[in-house]
């Protein structure tokens, strides 16, 4: 069951339609409702290895739908602690619950000042309306 459109206020957003939920020096990353809606139902998630590093604004993996293969852009830099195995096995989890069960990776942030460059939910909603 595809989720209804929403952009939770407790997340930070990257213009490439990725979100970050920060908890201390760790962050959980995923793609937004807008991103999964644009792609359609996902059929594959190419996840990074735990222990690898991700760099803000660079691709850390791929998601694939019947329409397209799309790079996933990291909103923050850091070390990958875990990729979501549930999404690897059932990529449509992202469509059903993009901010909950459908998270993509957890990282240990290397530079928390990068958070300042991300958008809050209001700014991202405006960004989506212009996309």
């Amino acid at each position, binding site marked *: 069951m595809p989720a209804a459109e929403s952009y939770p206020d407790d997340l930070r957003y990257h213009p490439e339609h990725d979100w970050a939920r920060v908890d201390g020096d760790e962050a959980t990353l995923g793609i937004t409702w807008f991103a999964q809606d644009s792609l359609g*139902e996902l059929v594959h998630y190419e996840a990074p290895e735990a222990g690898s590093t991700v760099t803000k604004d660079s691709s850390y993996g791929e998601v694939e739908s019947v329409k397209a293969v*799309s790079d996933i852009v990291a909103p923050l830099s850091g070390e990958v602690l875990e990729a979501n195995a549930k999404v690897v096995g059932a990529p449509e989890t992202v469509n059903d619950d993009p901010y909950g069960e459908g998270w993509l990776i957890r990282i240990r942030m290397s530079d928390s000042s990068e958070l300042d460059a991300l958008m809050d939910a209001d700014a991202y909603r405006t960004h989506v309306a212009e996309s």
Partner: protein
Amino acid sequence: MTEPGRAWGDAPLIFERSRSGRRGGRVPDYGLPKPELPPGLSRARAPRLPELAEPELVRHITALADRTFGVDTGFYPLGSCTMKHNPRVNERVGLLPGFRDLHPHQEDEGAQGALELMWTLQGILAEVAGLPAVTLQPAAGSQGELTGLMLMRAYFADRGEERDTIVTADTAHGTNPASVAMAGYKLERVETDARGNLDLEDLRGKVDERTAGLMLTNPSTLGLFDEGIEEVARIFHDAGALLYYDGANLNAVVGISRPGDMGFDIVHYNLHKTFSQPHGGGGPGGGPVAVRETIEPFLPAPVVVREGDAFRLDHDRPKSIGRVRGFAGPFGVFVRSYAYMRAYGPALREMSEVAVLNANYVLAKLRDAYDLPYDRHCMHEFVLSARSLKRDHGITALDVAKRLMDYGIHPPTVYFPLVVPEALMIEPTETEPKERLDDFVDAMQAIAREAAESPELLKEAPHGRPVRRLDEVRAAKQPVLRYAFDDDPAFVG
């Protein structure tokens, strides 16, 4: 058009038509000995071939043909594929016995006519590209791309330069990044600016002494000619890098502008798009590559050369990257494209002029019914967006495409290029008369109205085709790739 136009009936698979012991013909018993195969080469079980009489076989194939849609049955505006009409005279020329029956191992002396055709074709292609040297070997655009990148690698290796990065546009066909990866290069992607050109500021920051070259389609997959192409070429050449022209959209510019004059160093053509071959089912294709003098020594061997009045295959090219295809390349494709070019003669540019005219006519008629992301005159194709239909009525580009089938029209390319949301990429080609263009315009305008008035009609489309809306997600996740016999599900034929 909302009701099915006809009853399609069942189309059983050939295995479902099969009945044990039926046959379509008898092979005489010549009393020959049974051949003995080396041990280990025989299959464990006989293949399970369908068994049926000839009339049933003919009906099966006719039923499949009846369900097939092609440029011979209707309008086929599949963007970037150039689904133009293929003149039948090309087939007649291609089937001349001297061409058709020529053995690939024929000595040069006994194949002078074929070699002359190839040599002349190389010359015409060189003139179209504005570059002096041509290889005909690559069998498809994608193989032309790989050949072009291998030529870049050989060129830089010969100069002792180490370069590891290829730049592509964010509008590039998917084959570009795939070719880059296959050739062992790193990929750098450049953004498109608000007018649909390469973003020069972004580009300047991504070109340096590690850059081997650029791969670019011009006009781009947005159907727009890059207005900054000369500056783009300067940026790469100043860095010592090369420019590769992906000829997927060459149909827009033949005889009007030449990639070599724009600054490109390596060019591939799609003979099956621009120069008329039946295509759309995987071949046969032709992807010749043209290069500047400085890159000529690296071309795949052999190359057809002329000496006096004689022609021969020149194998003595010590710096060649080697063969990229068996024998002389897809020769039947050469004959048909050559016939096509000679039929136009010096008027070849009319092909591109009418292709651009037709596309702009359709664009002008549809610009108010759909979103137009880049508001410029287009070249041979253009990209619309169903963004407003989606926002206002929940109707996507896919729904529009499926509904077009009910109007007897092949859908355009959808969801590409990726920089345009809900993209519909439309290429009418030059071989469509105004009436067919108007039919398409009428259908697209009707569909935009239907989206507002009865969106469920579009959501459930197509209604009048042999099959309804396919489950693409399930097809991607659980593909059924072979027939499973009910009475023997484990059998692998």
